[in-house]
């Protein structure tokens, strides 16, 4: 019986010593990290480019600025252009991937887009089909907002 008690005491002492050493050899500190991604339209694009024709508008601007995130975030794409020698301008807008592309001018098209490639295609089509799309030395403003 005494032998069992001794063994039991040794086990208890060993556990206490081990626990004490473990506690002494580790120390921790914590920090709370807060993060987020803002939904700021300015982070997408707001630029003016010089264009030569409608195809250049779509391929250059869209490939530069349209990112995959556009297919997930509902945005309004507004574009306008005017030639340097005429005060002729067209305006249109697209509401994300499912919204129509419409024009403030007499011409308008409606497309259903579900990704950025189809948005690009819609815009190309719109600009090519729209008789008011200017050619030549033309300034194009492309703005994306929520």
């Amino acid at each position, binding site marked *: 019986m005494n032998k069992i008690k001794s063994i039991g005491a040794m086990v208890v002492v060993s556990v206490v010593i081990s626990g004490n*050493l473990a506690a*002494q*050899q*580790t*120390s*921790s*500190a*914590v*920090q*709370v*990290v*807060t*993060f*987020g*991604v*803002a*939904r*700021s339209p*300015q*982070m*997408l*694009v707001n*630029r003016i480019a010089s264009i030569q024709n409608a195809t250049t508008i779509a391929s250059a601007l869209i490939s*530069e*600025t349209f*990112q*995959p*995130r556009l*297919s*997930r*975030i509902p945005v309004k794409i507004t574009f306008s252009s005017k030639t340097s020698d005429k005060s002729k301008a067209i305006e249109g807008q697209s509401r994300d991937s499912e919204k129509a592309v419409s024009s403030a001018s007499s011409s308008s098209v409606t497309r259903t887009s579900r990704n950025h490639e189809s948005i690009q295609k819609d815009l190309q089509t719109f600009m090519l089909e729209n008789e008011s799309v200017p050619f030549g030395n033309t300034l194009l403003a492309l703005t994306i907002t929520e």
Partner: protein
Amino acid sequence: MNFLHTNGGYLLTLNGRFGYIRTSLPIVRIINSIILVVATSAILIAQSDGSSATQSVTIEVKPITKISVTGNPNPLIISDAVPGSNLTSVSDANTNYSLTTNLDNMKIVASISGRMPAGTKLMIKLSSSKASSTGLIDLSGAVTPVDVVTGISKCSEVNQSINYTFAANADVSEISTQSRVVTLTLTN
């Protein structure tokens, strides 16, 4: 009374009205012995009247390991992007850590309380003046600890910088503010 030094020792001369007594070194020695005996007796008598106590002082230095941080980093909010690139990452290096250890072969490991949202990364970098920083480490899925500083020996370091970087892919949509708890552990 004068003490004159001669080859054989000291010579005591007493000058006075009745002439002088001239003696040699043995007398001086006898006088010194008498003074010594008297003084020793006085000390012994004094000691016999006091008391003393003794103490046994036990000393020990245990293994010590401590780490602390200065608050939390500022919110990491992504709000900008360069067209054609991923979202512009944001960083914070406004917090520091300090440590003290009297052990060798120690390291700091970091872990996160939960995985980061898909397409995002939370990275951490701890500077160290006396050990090796592992550089910018991705904590996004570090539910189990990862090394951020290694090779720490007996030392203390004060106000070493903690740098957090939050990055997101271009296809990550809006993420409302979230938090994660990052645990830094000094361990072996």
